[in-house]
């Protein structure tokens, strides 16, 4: 099967407009006859559900949480990019497009990224109209800040809770449609399979997580908006329930899975504290606007700090190595995430790490507190020599900007970050890879769409900060509502699809069989035991730096662990009613397949790009070494039974508008 990305003709800036001018539309009366299933209610799923219902389609939305408001988009902290150029600092649609393609290390599809940049401004208009309380300046206009990998200030924010506010905006739009009966909301439901009828996606099998009942739901199209697969690492910044099951089930039914090895390891997370750790907490990238990252310049100081004999505040400026400022003078602490993460690992591997485990670097706000404090005493006409006052006023400014993040850090680590630098270390955060989709956001299964983090399309091999919220909302509010209409137009006379079709019965049976197997397995280890083991293989051998030997080992180890899992997993309770261990078992079963494909993809990509770093492919200075001649393509994997049998399909990436160069942030 040849991949057809269906990129419209025309110049890059005309494609989306031309496309919209020529697609099929469904008239308002006919939309009432069409059902759409949406799995996941984060920014992408929530905004899509609201918009499709608004247009007149009958939407059936599903989430595993107890309310759509809890989807993990809510945890996004820092901000959302938009090419508004309110700051007049040279931003434009083209520049956002360019930064995103470059930031993604030239592994994204140009046409999709340009469309994203084009609609970015509309997102801000939409959210403000919905009452999302974005940060404002004293004049009453919207405020912006900078994020990594850009030279302009284009990030809109709501303190450190931007994701929460945007999600609650989408949730409010959903609520309006739920109240009108246009969205039928299924909380505490998990999709466990896709139903394909005559080659088209026509429904899903879902488990009611409260009653345990297995349900059949039909629709004319199915939209997967179930987020990323970062939890394949067990420890990540994802929510505990975040899982890849919906995305993996469609893969097994024919949707190609693209670039699974592109995973973002976020540089500013709170370091691991012990074996009991259940998840990792992110500290927003926005902190890098004001925080300076450093490790001790001398090995003996690092050692003394690890042993508790010295404190970070004991070291003078000259004894500190602000390694990002040293290595990347132009971008300094605001280099993109992949670059910042690798630089932290490099210092810690060299022995300069600072906490008990040796896996942490400092993020220091002392300079920012001084700078803001001096500004405040000047503005207020106070005594600039009163050191205590300067610190007090500067602390207040920092608290106003990042207060909730500082509080979060204090609660977890039990240290006051206003007085002693934060400790941070990279952690798995976001997955750029995902279901392969064409320009219409449709997977290789007709009628099955994938939006937001669950697809692969816009971020290439590395996502820039504040771009995930932008993509989720762009897909849901402004892209899918057009493209799905074009697909549904021929179906207007079809009528409701019966859930008694043999395809529904067969899919339901397969789901029930799997559940029964788990319940009756009576093994000796809990689900978490296997999940943690998988996570350790992934982090050690498929993590921030990968090599051929490690990847080959990982593939063998994951396959063996999967076998052991099916033989020896213990799932208590019954299939009836609420059973959280059973939920975990069905999710981990899929992670155990995905993990192997992930390693296989990383092994085949003999280059380093973005979040994929192969030790064999690095420049002399340790920077990622791309191979555009051989690897400027999307790797889309077709399911053939086992991950080891997956077949590779290539979508060549053509760059007409951006020149491929070695990414430099120096």
């Amino acid at each position: 099967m040849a991949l057809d990305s269906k990129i419209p003709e025309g110049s890059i800036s005309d494609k989306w407009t031309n496309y919209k001018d020529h697609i099929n539309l469904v008239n308002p009366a006919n939309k009432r006859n069409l059902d759409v299933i949406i799995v996941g209610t984060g920014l992408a799923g929530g905004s899509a559900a609201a918009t499709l219902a608004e247009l007149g389609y009958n939407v059936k939305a599903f989430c595993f949480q107890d309310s759509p408001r809890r989807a993990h988009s809510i945890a996004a902290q820092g901000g959302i990019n938009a090419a508004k150029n309110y700051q007049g600092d040279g931003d434009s649609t083209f520049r956002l497009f360019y930064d995103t393609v470059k930031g993604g290390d030239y592994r994204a599809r140009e046409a999709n990224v340009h469309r994203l940049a084009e609609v970015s401004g509309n997102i801000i208009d939409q959210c403000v109209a919905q009452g999302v309380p974005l940060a404002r300046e004293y004049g009453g206009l919207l405020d912006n800040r900078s994020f990594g990998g850009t030279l302009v200030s284009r990030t809109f924010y709501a303190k450190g809770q931007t994701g929460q506010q945007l999600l609650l905006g989408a949730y409010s739009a959903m609520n309006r449609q739920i109240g009108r009966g246009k969205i039928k909301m299924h909380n505490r439901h998990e999709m466990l399979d896709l139903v394909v009828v005559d080659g088209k996606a026509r429904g899903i099998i879902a488990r009611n997580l409260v009653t345990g009942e297995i349900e059949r739901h039909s629709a004319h199209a199915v939209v997967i908006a179930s987020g990323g697969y970062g939890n394949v690492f067990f420890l990540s910044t994802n929510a505990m329930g975040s899982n890849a099951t919906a995305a993996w089930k469609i893969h097994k039914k024919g949707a190609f899975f693209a670039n699974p090895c592109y995973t973002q390891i976020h540089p500013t997370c709170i370091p691991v504290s012990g074996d009991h750790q259940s998840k990792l907490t992110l500290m927003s990238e926005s902190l890098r606007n004001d925080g300076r990252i450093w490790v001790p310049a001398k090995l003996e100081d690092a050692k003394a700090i690890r042993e508790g004999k010295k404190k970070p505040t004991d070291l003078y400026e000259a004894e500190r190595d602000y390694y990002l400022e040293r290595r990347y003078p132009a971008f300094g602490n605001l280099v993109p995430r992949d670059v910042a993460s690798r630089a932290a690992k490099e210092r810690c591997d060299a022995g300069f790490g600072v906490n008990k485990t040796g896996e942490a670097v400092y993020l220091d706000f002392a300079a920012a507190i001084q700078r803001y404090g001096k500004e405040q005493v000047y503005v207020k006409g106070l005594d600039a020599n009163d050191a205590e006052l300067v610190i007090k006023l500067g602390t207040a400014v920092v608290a106003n900007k990042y207060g909730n993040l500082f509080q979060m850090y204090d609660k977890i680590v039990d240290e006051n970050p206003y007085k002693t630098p934060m400790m941070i270390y990279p952690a798995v955060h976001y997955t750029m890879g995902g279901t392969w989709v064409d320009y219409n956001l449709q997977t290789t299964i007709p009628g099955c769409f994938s939006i937001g983090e669950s697809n692969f399309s816009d971020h290439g091999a590395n996502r820039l900060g504040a771009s995930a919220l932008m993509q989720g909302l762009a897909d849901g509010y402004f892209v899918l509502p057009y493209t799905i209409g074009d697909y549904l137009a021929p179906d207007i006379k079809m009528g409701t699809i019966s859930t008694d079709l043999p395809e529904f019965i067969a899919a339901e049976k397969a789901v029930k069989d799997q559940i029964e197997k788990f319940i009756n397995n009576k093994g000796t280890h809990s689900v978490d035991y296997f999940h943690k083991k998988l996570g350790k293989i992934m982090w050690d051998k498929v993590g921030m730096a990968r090599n051929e030997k490690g990847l080959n080992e990982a593939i063998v180890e994951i396959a063996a662990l999967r076998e052991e899992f099916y033989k020896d997993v213990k799932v208590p309770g019954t299939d009836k009613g609420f059973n959280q261990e059973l939920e975990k078992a069905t999710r981990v079963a899929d992670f155990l397949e995905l993990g192997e494909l992930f390693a296989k993809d990383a092994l085949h990509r003999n280059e380093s790009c973005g979040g994929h770093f192969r030790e064999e492919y690095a420049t002399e200075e340790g920077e990622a070494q791309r191979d555009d001649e051989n690897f400027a393509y999307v790797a889309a994997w077709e399911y053939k039974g086992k991950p080891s049998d997956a077949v590779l399909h290539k979508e060549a990436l053509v760059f007409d508008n951006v020149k491929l160069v070695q990414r430099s942030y120096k």
Partner: protein
Amino acid sequence: MAQCQSTFDFRLYGFQTKNMKLILKIWRQKNAATEGKIVEYPIDHIEPDMSFLEMLDILNDELIMKGDEPVAFDHDCREGICGMCSLYINGEAHGPDKGITTCQLHMRMFKDGDTIFIEPFRAKAFPVIKDLVVDRSSFDRIQHAGGFISVNTSGNTIDANTIPINKKDADDAFDAAACIGCGACVASCKNSSAMLFVAAKVSQYALLPQGRIEATDRVLNMVSQMDAEGFGNCTNTGACEVECPKGISLENIARMNREYLSASLKG
């Protein structure tokens, strides 16, 4: 005259004993139709740096290995923002620390040898699903009744900077919007009132020009749904504000009362 203050932070040197031993008294209830009871579980090898939910993970792992059913509890983001975790710990919603959710509570807040009572959020409008898991869909239904601005999602609205909003109102609207919908306010209230939750949403929109247009209908509809769900009345005791993990202020209730009064007069 400023005192010379020590900058020595005692917490850096972790004086707490490692490996705490605890007695957990946990509410177990098979499902909504059956009666529940408190069951005692001793637990050992708990470290002060663990989160409260990580402590429950350890208990559950032990229960599974013993062939018992693990304790069901709601949780998801484990960083204090999704609002999924609940738990009434030693008589307080989200436990003894302030300004946090249960998932942000750490074991260093307890002492070796402590007995800890763990119960679900209790309210007529929050029926128990299993053990510590409750059904908070009544909160969703209140939002369906009016927790939105009726603007279509086409993106073809006015430019976001067309209407300046003074920073104070924008910040106050943000503070109200910070509600995570966890239900601690209801669980802490002797009347099981949802006033703080409803007032937060009403206030967010009432403070913004975009929200003023439907302000009258919104407050009437949301309050009417709140009453229909069986939440109790507000008698201004303020327990909700004390236990709210996001510091939602009682001022919001005062604002909603004003909104409600003026809407009732108009209506």
